């Protein structure tokens, strides 16, 4: 294959993954330094009305509430707080947490929205696999993008290394970076 074609292929692969790489770079720093990036304040409160089926258990009731209100997110059972008249729960995903206060008798719901912010969302993409209850179809395609991005990143890496080894490497570079490669592998084996 011609050198110019390989460079183009490497470039196309790189352009496809560049935003994914930027997000992962930022996220890796946040993770490694255990930074707290989530916003914790309520930014919006709204009211609604829902149907309460008394025969449902807590999990089913929470799912029914999420569906009726059309709120996207997971329903962590450890956040459920229920008594005879009220049911408090959270609906959460990587970009937003919604706190629900449900009156079990009247069906009145108060929703407090806590958007986590841009940086937290960017960071959350690190763990995102496209599967969130009540998410629009577009978000479900993330798993395809993620898989493709990894595949393309690997191709880009192999092509870049091939181009370097075939056309431009210097002995000192090979020794230094080859040594760093072996050293990194040894460190990972010791973890």
């Amino acid at each position, binding site marked *: 294959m011609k050198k110019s074609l390989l*460079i183009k292929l490497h470039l196309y692969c790189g352009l496809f*993954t*560049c935003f994914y790489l930027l997000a992962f770079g930022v996220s890796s720093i946040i*993770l490694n330094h255990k930074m707290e990036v989530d916003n914790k304040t309520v930014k919006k409160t709204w009211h609604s009305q829902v149907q309460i089926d008394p025969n449902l258990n807590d999990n089913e009731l929470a799912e029914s509430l999420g569906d009726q209100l059309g709120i996207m997110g997971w329903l962590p059972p450890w956040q459920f707080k229920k008594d005879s008249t009220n049911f408090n729960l959270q609906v959460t995903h990587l970009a937003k947490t919604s706190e629900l206060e449900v009156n079990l008798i009247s069906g009145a719901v108060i929703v407090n929205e806590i958007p986590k912010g841009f940086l937290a969302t960017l960071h959350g993409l690190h763990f995102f696999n496209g599967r969130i209850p009540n998410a629009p179809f577009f978000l479900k395609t993330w798993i395809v993008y993620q898989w493709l991005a990894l595949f393309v990143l690997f191709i880009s890496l192999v092509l870049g*290394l091939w181009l370097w080894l075939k056309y431009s490497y210097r002995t000192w570079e090979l020794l230094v970076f080859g040594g760093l490669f*072996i050293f990194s592998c040894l*460190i990972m084996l010791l*973890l």
Partner: protein
Amino acid sequence: MKIPYVLIKKIHLYACLSTVAVLVMFIVTSYLMIHHNSFDHEMAKVEKTEGVNEIPTTPHEWRAFENQYQIKGRLTREGVNQDGESFREYASAAGSTRATFKSETNKVVFAINLKSKADALIGIHRQRGYSGAWQYTLYALLLDLVAVSLITFAITGVIMWFKLLKNSKTAWAIFVSGFIYFFLTIILLLYW
């Protein structure tokens, strides 16, 4: 200030070369995580009891204790359980150890969990932070290097494209569609 193309190319190359090993590990382990159900996740559990005169107190004594019983990993949790017994938990990429001190009988019980090969590899991916023995600190340093490199070679790669092939329609199509897809995902997450 105009940065010469050759310098940008070198930065792009060295940013990548310095992190190849960790990047390859991330790509392989991400594949393992995405295809979670295709791999074995059976954990082997071992329990053993040893005699201990007294619970260590100083960092030096703890290090000696960890060396004596060959405890792998770094300290993740310590405290007192419901029975009033002190415990310490250690985790490594390959598994975890919980040491529970039975002070009445001068014994320490080690509950050891050993992960499958796939989970042990994923365990490397999940290591983070500057704590524990020297290899963990070095790995955390490598992680920071990888993070900065990811950002650097993404930015330098785009700059090189502008300098080399900015008239390529295919390149523009890939770049713009990647941008739209990525930021539309973030906007949907933020405002849906």
